[in-house]
């Protein structure tokens, strides 16, 4: 019962947050100077007026906002001005799966690299190996993706010829994109894993196991690993949201048709409905992931429930 109440209140919070985000985005986008129809070559005043009338931008802003909300509730995100002939729904339906795909592969790469490195570093605590690995991870965190991505492209595509350097169709460039994201997040995951493994390894039951003469490897993987990995699991949700939302750089560097590119281009083009649409999708994604993590944690740990 308590859990159900908690989940419902978290859900209500998420929906309220979403409404705030949608509203703020709508008005912020409209406050920015310039509009979707402004071009380098002058658009005659009568044409500008015609276009504004055609797309309903001549109405008072509150009316436009009300219309926007009523469409949003029906799931209609409106047309995209930067991609005439496509609705924002279509643009997102094409772009989101690409970002999701990149994000999931990136996350898998991050786990494959990050978890073993973290466990290994924890096992070799305070040795040269540990310091070396953690320094590497620190560098990984500090190197922004816009440095790693072109570097990977230059080495693995142009020098070695193992992958294609750009494009989506019949191209292997997406792997370099996912690898960039994966490497970046593997550094976080390695540090996180090491920290929580050390936590667990210092606990009494581990000492008992060791004292009983259990083989060190068995202690590490059978006894410590389960507890040590829990924080990483909790981190997966936000990490995936971050991976998907943060893929703008790799999408640009490798020419991949994900949602990240639209996110930025919509803003620079003043493509109002696309701005609102992409922000809404990312907001839902992040809110949902956080909601999910909270629910799972509440389910795992009754203490969390009472805290709120």
């Amino acid at each position, binding site marked *: 019962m308590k859990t159900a109440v908690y989940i419902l209140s978290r859900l209500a919070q998420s929906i309220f947050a979403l409404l705030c985000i949608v509203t703020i985005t709508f008005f912020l986008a409209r406050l*920015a100077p310039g509009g979707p129809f402004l071009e380098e070559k002058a658009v005659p005043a*009568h044409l500008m007026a015609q276009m504004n009338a055609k797309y309903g931008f001549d109405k008072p802003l509150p009316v436009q906002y009300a219309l926007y909300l009523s469409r949003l509730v029906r799931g209609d995100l409106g047309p995209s001005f930067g991609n*005439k002939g496509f609705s924002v729904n279509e643009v997102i339906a094409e772009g989101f799966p690409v970002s999701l795909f990149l994000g999931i592969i990136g996350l898998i790469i991050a786990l494959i690299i990050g978890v073993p490195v973290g466990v290994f570093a924890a096992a070799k605590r305070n040795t040269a190996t540990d310091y070396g690995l953690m320094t590497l991870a620190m560098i990984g965190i500090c190197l922004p993706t816009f440095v790693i991505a072109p570097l990977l492209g230059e080495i693995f595509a142009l020098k070695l010829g193992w992958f294609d350097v750009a494009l989506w169709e019949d191209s292997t460039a997406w792997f370099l994109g996912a690898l960039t994201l994966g490497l970046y997040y593997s550094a976080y995951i390695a540090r996180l894993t090491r920290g929580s493994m050390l936590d667990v390894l210092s606990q009494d039951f581990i000492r008992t196991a060791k004292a009983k003469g259990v083989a060190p490897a068995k202690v590490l993987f059978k006894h410590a690993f389960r507890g040590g990995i829990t924080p990483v699991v909790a981190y997966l949700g936000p990490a995936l949201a971050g991976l998907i939302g943060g893929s703008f750089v790799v999408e640009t560097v490798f020419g991949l048709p994900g949602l990240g590119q639209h996110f930025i281009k919509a803003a620079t083009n003043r493509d109002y409905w696309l701005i609102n649409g992409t922000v809404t999708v990312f907001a839902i994604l992040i809110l949902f992931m956080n909601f999910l993590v909270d629910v799972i944690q509440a389910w795992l740990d009754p203490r969390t429930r009472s805290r709120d």
Partner: protein
Amino acid sequence: MLPLPRHQTQQGYLTHLTLLGVAVVTLLLSSGCKRESKVDIATREKILLLGNGAEPKALDPHLVSSTGDSNILRAMFEGLVTNHPSDDTIHEPGVAERWESNEDFSEWRFFLRKNAKWSNGDPVTAHDFVYSYNRILHPEMAGPYSSMLYFLKNGEKFNQGKIKDFAEVGVKAVNDFELLCTLESPTPFFPDVVKHTTWLPVHQPTIEKYGGMTDTFTDWQKPGNSVSNGPFELTDWRINAYVKVRRNPHYWDAENVKPNGINFYPIDNAFTEEKAFRNGLLHASYILPANLIPLYREREDPALRMEPYNGVYFYRCNTNQPPTDNADFRRALAYAINRETIVNFITKGNQQPAFGFTPPTKGGYVPPEVVSYDPEKARAFLKKAGYESGADVPEFTVIFNTSDDHKSIAVSIQDMWKKTLGIENVKIENQEWKVYMATVDEMRYDVSRLAWIGDYVDPTTFLGMWRTGDSNNRTGWGNSDFDRLYKESFFISEPKERYATLQEAESILLEELPILPVYWYTRVYLLHPDVENWNPLLLDNHPYKHIDLKAKAGGDGK
């Protein structure tokens, strides 16, 4: 030829994984031996792979204005007159077999070929053109570039809604194959004008199958729905990934169309595009970033192309307010700019220092040589403007849209004005693209940078904007002699004489200098040696049907 539905091309995640597997296996089996590049395969299959800048805003000729978008549209559609593969001044017959005008060039008759067909087999008739011009000019269409059709009599008034009946606009189908255009004023260069994207026809039944004539968000332009009359038809389109066109079997000259198709790739990051070219993924890049040009020049890379382009880079002065309301002060600024330095050390792509405004055309119009770098003259003008020294000049700001190249140019001009004229108080400020356009549109600036690319090869596309009150003028400058000479030029049939009148007009502009010309553009890009019959064109409108692909011995995509 059946176009794939869009979602079917989206399924490719598994394909991607499979591809990766194949790539890894091939790699293991053949390490050391070079695999055939995408370009090699495409050359064999005669598919042209082109980088094309930003994602197209639409594939509807009545809705677009950018050069990248018109590249795709020119592959898909054909106008009355079309582009020649090597000479911008030659008019190639398109849907019109031939054309003639009355004595004063105010009436043009286009005789359409009887075998021109839409990609669904329907004949292309004069009525299609009338319908199209009605559509783009219709107030409810709100076509952003519809002003290109103001050449037609009453075109502007109809577009503004002042005339309701399209029958009053100067375009008529005399019969199925004869189109009569009556113009607002005599226009000797009208065939140049109708080559522009905005004059392309659209297919009425297709437009109306998916919505009303003036509905802009319908599905007609999507693959499988789109019907066009050019050498190619649309087969596939994925946002930010590709636009593919393939042979239109119904095209009247299909047997002379060389490529089997074109893939346009919207890669708007110029560095990514350059890498894609190096990686053998493209036959031609759309542009090459200025800081990579020296690299290609040093190793004399045959792929590097630097060709004169129909555009000018300049600064606009706000003549409504001090200090730029003073013509002598503007002259001082103009003569203090060392344009050689800018093209040699900043833009680096063989751009030509602008001594006038309109870019010179070989065998055509050449602007009067007025502006130059002359420190003595610049200082003299500063004195004449009433400033004892540059330090007395009140503060003013140069604005430009955010870009490293614009910034480098602004910084170097700021420095030149300081060194030559002693002006200390020049601020430079970058603004985000749309903010910058709004600022310029509302004339809230002192000096702003701008590029102007001509729509057709004729000085009027550069000089028209400097008429008093023209919506693109945005300097507050106007001169009745300039306006008169410009207008007179339309009534002169003999090109030499007409050019002389326009030169006279342009010298007024260059004497008064509401603008500070900097350089004339070049197109700088990379072209694969397999591409044949791709010639330098001032407008860069390559008629793709003439372009051939042949593998060159030893060509490895590098």
